[in-house]
C-alpha cells in the first residue's frame, strides 16, 4: 500500500485515540466531577467574579437560550464596528482598508456563527487587530457557544425529570478554559515550531533568486490556525487557507490539523453517552456517523485518486491523482480525506481548492454539508443529529403504532413540530438561495455591483451552477468553505449568505435545545417491554435511513443540475 493511503489511515486512527479519552474527560468536566485540570479553577473563579456571574444560579432552557443569544448579539455589534473602522484603529501594519458595510455584515455574522465563510482575503482585507480581536476571538467563543448549547441538551437527559439545566455561563467558560484554550496552546506551538509565523511583524520584502521583488504577508497566524481547527471554524489567516505553506507547512502539520478539527466533534458524542449514563447510545450514534463518513470519503478518494479524465486524454501521467488546486507536500489522498472531513464537520478550512476537484468529489462535498450531522460542528453537530433522531423516533413510533418516546420522555406534537420546522429549514434556505442567485445571474447580469452577476462565475456550464449551489449550501451548514472561483464580494452575495448563515446557525441551536428542554421537563416513563429502544442496531439503521431519505428527496434535483450533470458530460 502506498504512503499516501497509509498516511490517512494513520491520521484517522490517531484521531480516535485522542478523541475517545477526550470525550470521557469532557463528560466529567461538564458534570463537575474531579479531573486533572481542576488546577484551573481559580482562573475560572476569577473570570466569574470579574464578569459578575453566579454559576450556582440554575437556568431553564429558555433562560439558557436568552443568555446565549444576548452575548452572541453583543459580539455581532462589537465586531461589525471594528471591521468597518479597522483602517482607523491600531495594529494595521500593512495599511489595509476598512470593510464596506455589506462585507462587514457578512463577515461578522459568518464568524459569530462559527461559519467562517470569507468574502475578504486575509492578506489584504483585514488588519492584525481584526484578525486577533474579532476573528480569532470569535473562533473561540462561537465554538464554546456550540459546545455549551450541546451541554444544555446533555443536562436535559441526565436526570429523570428536570427543568434545572445548569448555568450557561459555566458551560461556556469551561469549554474555553478546560478544552479550547489548552488545546490551542499545544497546536499553536506545534505549528510555530514547524514554520508557521506567530510574530507581529508586518509585510516583508525580498529579491528572489531570479531577481523578482516579492512581498510576503506574515503575522500572528499560528495562534489563529490552532483554534480555527479545534473550534471547527475554518477561517484561515491567509487567503489560500491551509493550502498556504505558512498555514500548513508540511505533511506532519497537515496530519495535526486534520486531527485537530475532528477531535472535539467526536469527543462530544462520547461525552454525551457518558454524561447521561447511556454509553451504548453514544456508540450507536458514533457508529452511524462513522459509517456515513466512510460512505462519503471512499468515493471521494476514488474520484480524486483517479485523476482528471480530461487531462488523462492529453496523455500526461497522473500517477498520484488530480493535482489542480492541490499541494505537492500533501498529495491527492490527504487532500481528498481533508475535503470530506471539512465538509462533514463544519470546519470549512481547505488544504486544496474545492472548486478544482472532480465533479463527483464536489457532489460528496455538497451532500456532506447538506446532511451536516456526521460528527458535525463543535457541539452543533450533535444538535443537528438530535433532530434526525427525533424524526426517526416519530416515524418508528408511527410504524409500530406506539407513542413515540425518547429516553423515557414522550415525544408529542409540539416537539415534532419544532423538529419538522428545523428539518425543512435547510432545504428551504439552500434551494431558495440557489434559485434566487440563478435568477439574478440569468436575468440581471448587468446589475451595477462590485462584481456584476454575469461575471461572478469562474467556470461555465454546470460547474458554474455548482459554484452557486456550493456557496449557499456552505452558508446554511455554517461550513464556510467555498467553490472560491465565485466572485462573492458584492452586495448580493454578502447580504444573501449573511442572512442564510444567521438563520442556519441560530434556529438549529434554538430548536434542539427547546425540544430537549421540553422533553426533560416531562414525566419520566420507566423502560418496559414496549419501549422503543434507541440504542439498538435496528434503530441506528432507521436513523440512517431517515437521514438518507430526507436529504435525497430534498436535494437530488439540485445535485443533478450541478455536479452530476458535469460528471456525465465529462464521460463523453
Amino acid at each position: 500500500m502506498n504512503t499516501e493511503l497509509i498516511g490517512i489511515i494513520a491520521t484517522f486512527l490517531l484521531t480516535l485515540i485522542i478523541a475517545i479519552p477526550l470525550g470521557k474527560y469532557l463528560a466529567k468536566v461538564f458534570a463537575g466531577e474531579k479531573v486533572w485540570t481542576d488546577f484551573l479553577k481559580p482562573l475560572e473563579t476569577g473570570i466569574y467574579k470579574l464578569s459578575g456571574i453566579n454559576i450556582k444560579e440554575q437556568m431553564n432552557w429558555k433562560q439558557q437560550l436568552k443568555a446565549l443569544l444576548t452575548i452572541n448579539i453583543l459580539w455581532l455589534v462589537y465586531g461589525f464596528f471594528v471591521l468597518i473602522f479597522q483602517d482607523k484603529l491600531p495594529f494595521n501594519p500593512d495599511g489595509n482598508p476598512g470593510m464596506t458595510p455589506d462585507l462587514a455584515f457578512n463577515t461578522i455574522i459568518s464568524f459569530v456563527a462559527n461559519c467562517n465563510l470569507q468574502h475578504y482575503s486575509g492578506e489584504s482585507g483585514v488588519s492584525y487587530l481584526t484578525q486577533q480581536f474579532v476573528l480569532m476571538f470569535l473562533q473561540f467563543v462561537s465554538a464554546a457557544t456550540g459546545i455549551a448549547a450541546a451541554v444544555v441538551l446533555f443536562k436535559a437527559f441526565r436526570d429523570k425529570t428536570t427543568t434545572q439545566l445548569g448555568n450557561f455561563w459555566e458551560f461556556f467558560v469551561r469549554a474555553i478554559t478546560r478544552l479550547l484554550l489548552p488545546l490551542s496552546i499545544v497546536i499553536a506551538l506545534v505549528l510555530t515550531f514547524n514554520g508557521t509565523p506567530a510574530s507581529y511583524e508586518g509585510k516583508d520584502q525580498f529579491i528572489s533568486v531570479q531577481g523578482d521583488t516579492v512581498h510576503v504577508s506574515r503575522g500572528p497566524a499560528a495562534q489563529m490556525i490552532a483554534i480555527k481547527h479545534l473550534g471547527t471554524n475554518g477561517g484561515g489567516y491567509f487567503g489560500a487557507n491551509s493550502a498556504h505553506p505558512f498555514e500548513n507547512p508540511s505533511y506532519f502539520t497537515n496530519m495535526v490539523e486534520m486531527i485537530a478539527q475532528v477531535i472535539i466533534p467526536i469527543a462530544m458524542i462520547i461525552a454525551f453517552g457518558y454524561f447521561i449514563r447511556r454509553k451504548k447510545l453514544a456508540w450507536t450514534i458514533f457508529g452511524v456517523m462513522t459509517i456515513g463518513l466512510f460512505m462519503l470519503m471512499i468515493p471521494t478518494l476514488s474520484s480524486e485518486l483517479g485523476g482528471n479524465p480530461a487531462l488523462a486524454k492529453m496523455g500526461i501521467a497522473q500517477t498520484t491523482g488530480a493535482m489542480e488546486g492541490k499541494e505537492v507536500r500533501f498529495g491527492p489522498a490527504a487532500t481528498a480525506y481533508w475535503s470530506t472531513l471539512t465538509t462533514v464537520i463544519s470546519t470549512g478550512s481547505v488544504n486544496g481548492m474545492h472548486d478544482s476537484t472532480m465533479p463527483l468529489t464536489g457532489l460528496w462535498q455538497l451532500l456532506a454539508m447538506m446532511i451536516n450531522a456526521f460528527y458535525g460542528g463543535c457541539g452543533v453537530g450533535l444538535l443537528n443529529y438530535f433532530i434526525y433522531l427525533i424524526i426517526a423516533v416519530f416515524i418508528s413510533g408511527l410504524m409500530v403504532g406506539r407513542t413515540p418516546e425518547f429516553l423515557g420522555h414522550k415525544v408529542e406534537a409540539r416537539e415534532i413540530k419544532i423538529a419538522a420546522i428545523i428539518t425543512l429549514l435547510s432545504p428551504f434556505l439552500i434551494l431558495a438561495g440557489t434559485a434566487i442567485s440563478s435568477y439574478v445571474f440569468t436575468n440581471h447580469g448587468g446589475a451595477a455591483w462590485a462584481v456584476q452577476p454575469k461575471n461572478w462565475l469562474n467556470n461555465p456550464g454546470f460547474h458554474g451552477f455548482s459554484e452557486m449551489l456550493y456557496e449557499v449550501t456552505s452558508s446554511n451548514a455554517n461550513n464556510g468553505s467555498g467553490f472560491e472561483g465565485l466572485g462573492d464580494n458584492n452586495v448580493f452575495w454578502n447580504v444573501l449568505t449573511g442572512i442564510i448563515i444567521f438563520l442556519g446557525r441560530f434556529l438549529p441551536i434554538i430548536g434542539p435545545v427547546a425540544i430537549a428542554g421540553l422533553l426533560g421537563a416531562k414525566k419520566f416513563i420507566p423502560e418496559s417491554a414496549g419501549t422503543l429502544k434507541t440504542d439498538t442496531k435496528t434503530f441506528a439503521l432507521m436513523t440512517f435511513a431517515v437521514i438518507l431519505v430526507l436529504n435525497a428527496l430534498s436535494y437530488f434535483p439540485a445535485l443533478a443540475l450541478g455536479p452530476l450533470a458535469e460528471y456525465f458530460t465529462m464521460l463523453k
Partner: protein
Amino acid sequence: MKNYIIQSIRLTLVLIVLLCILYPLGIALAGKLSKGNGGGEKITKNGKVVGYALLGQSFTKPEYFWGRPSAVAYNAAGSAGSNKGPSNPDYLKEVSNRIDTLLKYNPGLKKSEIPADMVTASGSGLDPNISEQGATIQIERVAKARKLDEKKVKELVAMNTLKPFLGLFGPSSVNVLKLNLALDNL
C-alpha cells in the same frame, strides 16, 4: 434580561484579555525560539535574503529547475489557486499549452512522463515543491544549460528530495528553491 446584557459585556471584556492578548502574545514569545524567530524561516545566498524556505518562487530560466504553475504568479501577499473546474474548456487549453512549453524546453521528453503537478496550478499559488518525477524530467535540460554532468545533477536532486514523513506517511517531494540554490553553489 438586563442582567444578561451586563454579564455578557463584562465576560466579553475578560475573555478578550485572555484570548486576544495573553494567549497570542505567549505564543509569539515562544515563537522567538523557533527557526526564523516566528516570522518565517528565511533563506540567504551570499548574505542576502533570497526567499523563504516554505514559499515557492518563480523560476523560468532554463538553468533552474521550474516549480509548479501558479495562479497568482507566486505573489506571497495574495495567495490563491486557479479555482478552475475540471471540465472548463479555457482551463484545459491552458494545461495543453503548459504541456507544449515543457515539451519544447525539454527535448526528448515524452508526454506520458509529465507528472500532473508540473502542468496544474497549486492551491496556494506558492507551492514550494514539485514531485520527484517533476524534477527528474528537467535534469537533462538543467545539466545542458549549466554544462554539468547529468549524473551530478541527478545526485543533487536525490539529495534534495524529502522522503515521506517518518518514511511512512504521505508523498515525497523536492523543494525547488533549495535545489536551485544547491545548483548555484556547485
